[in-house]
Structures are given as structure tokens and as C-alpha cells.
């Protein structure tokens, strides 16, 4: 399993989750966990996904999601889980 953290931050709009999830489904990325909040009209979503089953490399997923983010006006980051594990778990 290759746990990857996907974060989406930006101004709230209709269909942000749909766009991201459709892309992930089309590329065989399994979603393990989702949490989402809206603070002051700003959309903030974090997803934990497994990219090991994907037909694309993590690098490609990162690049394509970034482009989707630009189209709908939000910032999408795809990061290896390792940095958060290292920083917040002993």
C-alpha cells in the first residue's frame, strides 16, 4: 500500500469533491479516508488514498490533480504520507 495524502484548499464551489473523486475513480486510486470542513467560505478537504493500485505513477497523479485544481480554482496537493508520519508520530 502506498498511502498518499491529498489536500484540497480553496474557495468553496459546487462539485469540488465530485471532480477529484471522479478523477481518482477513473485512475484506480482507492480512497481510505476523507474529512472536509468549510471555514469562512474556504473549502478544506483532506483525503488519504492508496495510489499503489493506480495505473498511473504518483508523479502523474500529482501533476494531473494539480491541473484539475487550477481548472476549478483550488489548490490540490498530493504528498507522500511519510512527511506527516515523521513529523507527528514518534
Amino acid at each position, binding site marked *: 500500500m502506498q498511502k498518499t*495524502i491529498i*489536500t484540497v484548499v480553496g474557495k468553496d464551489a459546487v462539485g469540488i469533491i465530485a471532480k477529484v473523486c471522479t478523477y481518482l475513480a477513473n485512475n484506480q486510486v482507492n480512497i481510505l*479516508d476523507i474529512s472536509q470542513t468549510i471555514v469562512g467560505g474556504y473549502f478544506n478537504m483532506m483525503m488519504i488514498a492508496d495510489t499503489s493500485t493506480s495505473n498511473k505513477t504518483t508523479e502523474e497523479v500529482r501533476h494531473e490533480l494539480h491541473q484539475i485544481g487550477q481548472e476549478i480554482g483550488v489548490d490540490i496537493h498530493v504528498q507522500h504520507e511519510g512527511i506527516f508520519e515523521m*513529523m507527528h508520530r514518534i
Partner: protein
Amino acid sequence: MITSLEVNETNAMIEHENLDVRTITLGISLLDCISSDLEELCRNIRVKILARAKDLVKVGQRISSAYGIPIVNKRISVTPIALVGGAACKSPEDFVRIAKTLDRCAKDVGVNFLGGYSALVSKHMTNADELLIRSIPEALAVTDRVCSSVNVGSTRTGINMDAVRLLGHIVKETAERTKERDSLGCAKLVVFCNAPDDNPFMAGAFHGVTEGDAVINVGVSGPGVVKHALESCRGADFEMLCETIKKTAFKITRVGQLVAKEASRLLGVPFGIVDLSLAPTPAVGDSVADILKEIGLEHPGAPGTTAALALLNDQVKKGGVMASSYVGGLSGAFIPVSEDQGMIEAVEAGALATRRRRRSPASSPTRWPWA
């Protein structure tokens, strides 16, 4: 499972508080390149550096993109050239040849800087050491990425005053030789005492003779992150202050440890150390002086500066030591006036100056013998 709070905290550090990995430095021993023939020496150096460092920049970019953490510099440090070139170089010009070779290697593998155009003369100078030192102004004027350093003293041996005297002239000459480019040569030259063998930061990095054939050393930095954390505990007591610095240093250092381990694995080069240093950049919000102010100083230079700095260093080390399996390098705080916005402000405010201020005898109730 990682929570969104933790993810947001990490990403805020990266995006808003300038958390970054300042450098991945690949240390390469050039001792096995030594030859009494200058041509052959330069050829050996080139072959070794290109072989060892060809993937360094690529690996750095790959790690940076995978974890979403900026890795600002990829660098190389080599064995002090005074040792490597001693047998082949009969004049300062010969040493400059080596500098040019190093510069070409650095450009070919795409690293930002290559350090190790160095001499270790804390006790005495060999002939080769002196030739290298005399070649520094020319070497730094004709190269772009080579960094030079001279260790002129150590706690054990004291200070080599002959070397200090010589370097006074060398520093001025280096400035003069690069005066059309803001005297940039001097930005690539460090003169220091107690130089560590595994320092990843420039311009003072070199690959000490006590090191192995190749090693990965990483320097992390995040003065903005420490400052931001301290903002949240304004008015609290010293215990809270120290705890906050420790916790933050731990988190910053963990990122360095992760990057170092990953770079070591991908390059097949042993992991050396993480350098726990707070190093500023001129960017606003990336200042060590601002941390000192957040601790409670009016400006760096004001009464209490040394105490605040000692407290900061102590707590950074205490927090960082547990976060990394090997800690080394300089592991302190770099606060160059030219690279820290808070320090620049302190100079402008008159709180910091290079000249010692004298009190006039009339206004001074006590006559200090050293004033």
C-alpha cells in the same frame, strides 16, 4: 491515522512559514584522486565527482515533489583541496586549475555549490596550505560555484595568527577581485575556528578526512516556524517558551531526517548527519533575529541578546537530538547580518555595530581597563 489538523499544520509550515530543507550535501572523498601530475589529478577528480553525484539533483527534486517539501539547495563537499592538491600543485595558479575543474564538475551535475576549496591550518601551514590560501582570490573570481574555507583555529590548538594575518589580506583581495559583482567572492569564503568535518552548509562545507568515501548530510531550517510557534505563547513563562522551541525543533528536524534517509536510500550513499541549525534567508518571515525579538529582545544587540541566543540554541538542540539518529555539523544558529532581515533592521536601528562603543570618561563612573 494522520488527522487533517496535522496535515494542515505541516502544510502551513511549508507554505506560510518558510519551512524548508536548506540543503542536501553530498560529501565526496577525493583522497583516492591524488596524483603528482596535475592533469591526471584534475581528470581523477572529474571522474569521481561525476560518477558519485550524477543523480544528486534528480533525487533531490524527486524527494521534494513526493513529500511536498522544498529542498532549496543540492550541494557537494569534497576533501580539503590543500590535501588533495599538495603533491601536484607547485604554485597558486596550479590550485586555480583545480578550482576550475571543480567549478565545471559542479555545473555539469547541476549542483548549486561545491565546497571544499579549503585548508585546515589551525596549528601551522604546510607549503600546500599556503599556496591554496594565496590562490583563493583568483580561484573565487574565475569560478561561480566553488566555495572556499580556511580553518584557522581550534579550542585545542588556539588560533594560528600567521594564517589570520595572511587571510586579512586575502579577504580584501577577494573583495577587490570581484568588486564588479558586489564583491561576491567574499560570500563564497569562510574563515573559521573549530570547523566540523561534516558541515553541510556553505560556504564552509568540506568533506573531512575522518569521513567515509561518500556521505549524505542534510541541513534543515525553519526560523519562521519557530517564530510563528512562539507568537502563540506570548506572555507565557520560560518553561512554556522552552517547551515550544523544543517541540518545534523536533518537528523541523524530523523532516530533515526523513529527507536524509530517503536521499541516502535513493543514491546508495550512507546517511551522515542532520545539521540542526536555524539559518535565515533575507526573505521576510525567515529571520533568526525575529525569533530573538519574539523571545523578548527589543533588537538583537540589546541587553539579553546572548542569553536569548543561548536559550534558543540549547532548546533547538534538545528538541532536535531526539528527532534524528545522527546529529552533527555546526548545529547552531547562523545569523549573518547580510542574510537576515531582522539583523539588518537591528543595524539600521543602531542596536548592532562592528565598532565597540566607547563611553567618554566624563560620563562614565567606572573606567573599564578594556574599554
